[in-house]
Structures are given as C-alpha cells and as structure tokens.
C-alpha cells in the first residue's frame, strides 16, 4: 500500500470517527427532558401532605447523560387560582454528576397543586443553541379537581385536556400545545417514559427497548394544536412539545412545553 493510500485511509477513518461522535451527540441532544418529579402525585386521606420535588434536566428513558441546570428563573405552584413563588426554596443538589434542584412543599388543603418551572436557558454546545423547557406536573390532594386544566401563561405550555392524574394504563392522554398563549398547529411532541429503575435515585422498574425508535416516541399535534397519546404502561410519562423560540444571547433557542403524568395499572 502506498503512502498516499495509507494517508487516505487514515483521513477516512478520522472522518468516520468524527461523524460517529457528531451523530451520537446529536441523538443525545434530542430527548433532553426537563423533569419536575414529585415524591407523591396523589395525596390521599391519612397520607403525609409533605412532598419532595426534584428538578432535573436529563434523558429520562435512556437514563443517560444529565445536564447541569443553572438556578431556575421561576419555580412555583398554582393552587385554587393563585400562584405561589417557590424559587427561593430551591436547594441545589448533585444528580449523576450534574447540577439539579430540589425542594420540599407542604400541600395544605384539598385540590390540585400545579407545579411549574421556567428554567434558565441551557446552552447545548453541540447545537450551538439554547434549550428552554417549561415544565409542569400536577399533584392532587383528596381527589378534589380544582386547577388541573388551568392555563398558567408560561411562554410555552401544554394545557391538558384530560385530567393529568388518576390515569390508567390504556387511557388516552390529550393536551393542547401553546406558545405565547396560542395553539401550535402540528407541533412535534417527544414522548418518553421515565426509566426509573435505571436511575438509582428514583423508585420504579427499569425498561429495556427493542430499538432506538422505541426510546423517544414522536407524535404530532393536529391543526388545533391538540395531541393524543395512548398510554401503554404504568409509570411516569413526559410529553415535550419542541418549538423554535426567540433567539437568546444571539443564538438559536429551542423552546419546549413539558408536562409529566403518572399512570397506574388497573388490577
């Protein structure tokens, strides 16, 4: 083999390795999910009304890379038509080597407690762009339905059309994707199930996937911004509607509207 052939082979190998790295990082930057995870989603009579909340930016299905979260812009709870700011109560902690946030909250009274998060924009170096995912989760106390379908006015928001708790495996979950208060026709939504067993810090069964296509499912909203998903298994499910947002600090920004629901098997 001539020297020029050897050089060409080395160049091809280097290019192939670079391409593989780029593809791997690109795949992992898809399926970034902002998690807002409560220790209890349904507070029943006799149960403690003190819940722990974890805010983590990670890959929930693959249980892979977790991203550093800067202190959120806003974290709060909406209950009986009133918003309460909990940003000051957040405490930093380390989750799988990355910065995450947590707090404890006492849910007084009956009804829905809609926890919402406006994170600090996350700079994704591989895409040279920012990612900002506005996330919600609803905790219910005593079964009283009060605020689960409230529109909080987040920059990007999923407004549920089905009560986002008390769900059975096999139920259909629907929501409207909104950006700056307007429905987003044909919005693309990534769906992942929290692979709790693969995260040693969470509680739940692990999940294996027959193919990459099964890790992050993708659905689209209809012309009215309404999406529909048939839930196949119990556990925590996240829905992230991803949209192009306004630029941030001179860079592109992907804005996401996220909602988490917990599903139960009917025995």
């Amino acid at each position, binding site marked *: 083999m001539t020297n020029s052939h050897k050089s060409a082979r080395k160049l091809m190998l280097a290019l192939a390795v670079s391409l593989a790295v780029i593809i791997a990082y690109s795949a992992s930057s898809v399926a970034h999910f902002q998690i807002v995870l409560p220790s209890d989603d349904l507070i029943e009579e006799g149960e403690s009304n003190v819940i722990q909340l974890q805010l983590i930016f990670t890959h929930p299905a693959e249980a892979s890379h977790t991203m550093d979260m800067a202190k959120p812009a806003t974290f709060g709870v909406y209950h*009986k038509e009133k918003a309460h700011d909990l940003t000051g109560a957040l405490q930093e902690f380390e989750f799988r080597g990355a910065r995450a946030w947590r707090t404890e909250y006492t849910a007084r*009274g*009956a*009804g829905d407690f809609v926890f919402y998060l406006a994170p600090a924009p996350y700079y994704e170096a591989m895409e040279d762009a920012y990612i900002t995912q506005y996330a919600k989760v609803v905790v219910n106390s005593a079964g*009283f339905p009060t605020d689960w379908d409230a529109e909080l006015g987040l920059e990007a928001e999923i407004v549920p059309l089905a009560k986002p708790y008390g769900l059975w495996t096999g139920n259909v979950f629907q929501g409207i994707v909104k950006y700056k208060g307007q429905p987003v026709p044909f919005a693309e939504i990534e769906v992942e199930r929290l692979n709790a067993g693969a995260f040693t810090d969470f509680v739940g069964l692990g999940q294996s996937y027959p193919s990459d296509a099964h890790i992050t499912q993708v659905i689209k909203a209809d012309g009215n911004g309404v999406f529909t998903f048939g839930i196949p298994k119990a556990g925590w499910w996240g829905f992230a509607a991803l949209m192009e947002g306004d630029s941030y600090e001179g860079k592109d920004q992907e804005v996401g509207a996220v909602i988490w629901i917990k599903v139960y098997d009917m025995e």
Partner: protein
Amino acid sequence: MKSRLRVTLAALAILVLSAATAYAHTPMLYVEDMRDGTIYLEGGFSDGSSAAGVKIYLVEDALFKSDTAARDEYLEALFANSPKERAAYVAKLSSKVDVRSKAFRYSDLLPELFEKKLIIFRSQLDQYGELVLRKPKGKYLVVFDAGPGHVVVKKGPALTDAERKQSK
C-alpha cells in the same frame, strides 16, 4: 284524559332525568387535623362544582340515649364569650327557648339527630367551600350534607389532651 296522563308522565320523566343529570357528581369532603384543637374542612364535588353553603354537622359517634352532654358542653365552650353568636345560633335552630333568660340551659334545646346520633353542632361551608371548627371532646363524625344521596360522613380527628389544655 289519556292526553293529560301522557303530559303528566312526560313531565315526570323530564323531572327525573333532570334531577339525575343535575346530581351526577360525587360529593367530597376533606378533613384536616390542624393539631391546635380545630379541624379544617373543605367540601366539593367530583365535577369541580362549588360546595359553598353546604350544611356541615358535627355528630356524636354513638347512638343517642337521651344524653345531650356532648352538644351542651360544646356549645357552652363555643359561645362562652359570645352571647350574640349564641342567640343567632339558637335562632337558626328555630328553637323557642329564650336564650337571653338567666335560667337558659343548652340542655333545654331539643336534641337533633342524624341517623340516630346526636348533632353536636350545625354549620355550613363558606363561599370557598371551606370551614374551620373546634373539635368536640370524645368520638365524633363530620357530616357533609348536600341533600339526599349527597352525604359524606367521616370520622373526626380526636381532641388530644395537649390541645384541650392549650384551649383553656
């Protein structure tokens, strides 16, 4: 005659169906022990409709045997320094007892029963469907009464010795 019967039956059917539709929701009662001698109550319905104004009773959790002591002690403590509130409460009971008389005793009030048990105190949920009540001594029930088929009964959290001392 036949047409009148048909009209009557149709009206009856509409009435029954309307009632069924109006009351398809499930009543709900939330009771929280405030651990200071009081309980926080919240009422509602499964469809989110308001429970403002729904009647609430505290009921002695024992079959009534002509002893109104649980009620009398509760009212005595509740209205000890509130003669106007006492008069208003007794008036709401439609009692003809003269509450302003020096000889007035709570035991003069006729006992009211809920499912053969003594009603200790009557009240109603406020405009937000909420209410805070003092705990009575002994075992008691909290009753949410929104009408036939819309009643919820829950055991009330006990008044502890510490709470009793705190309230003195």
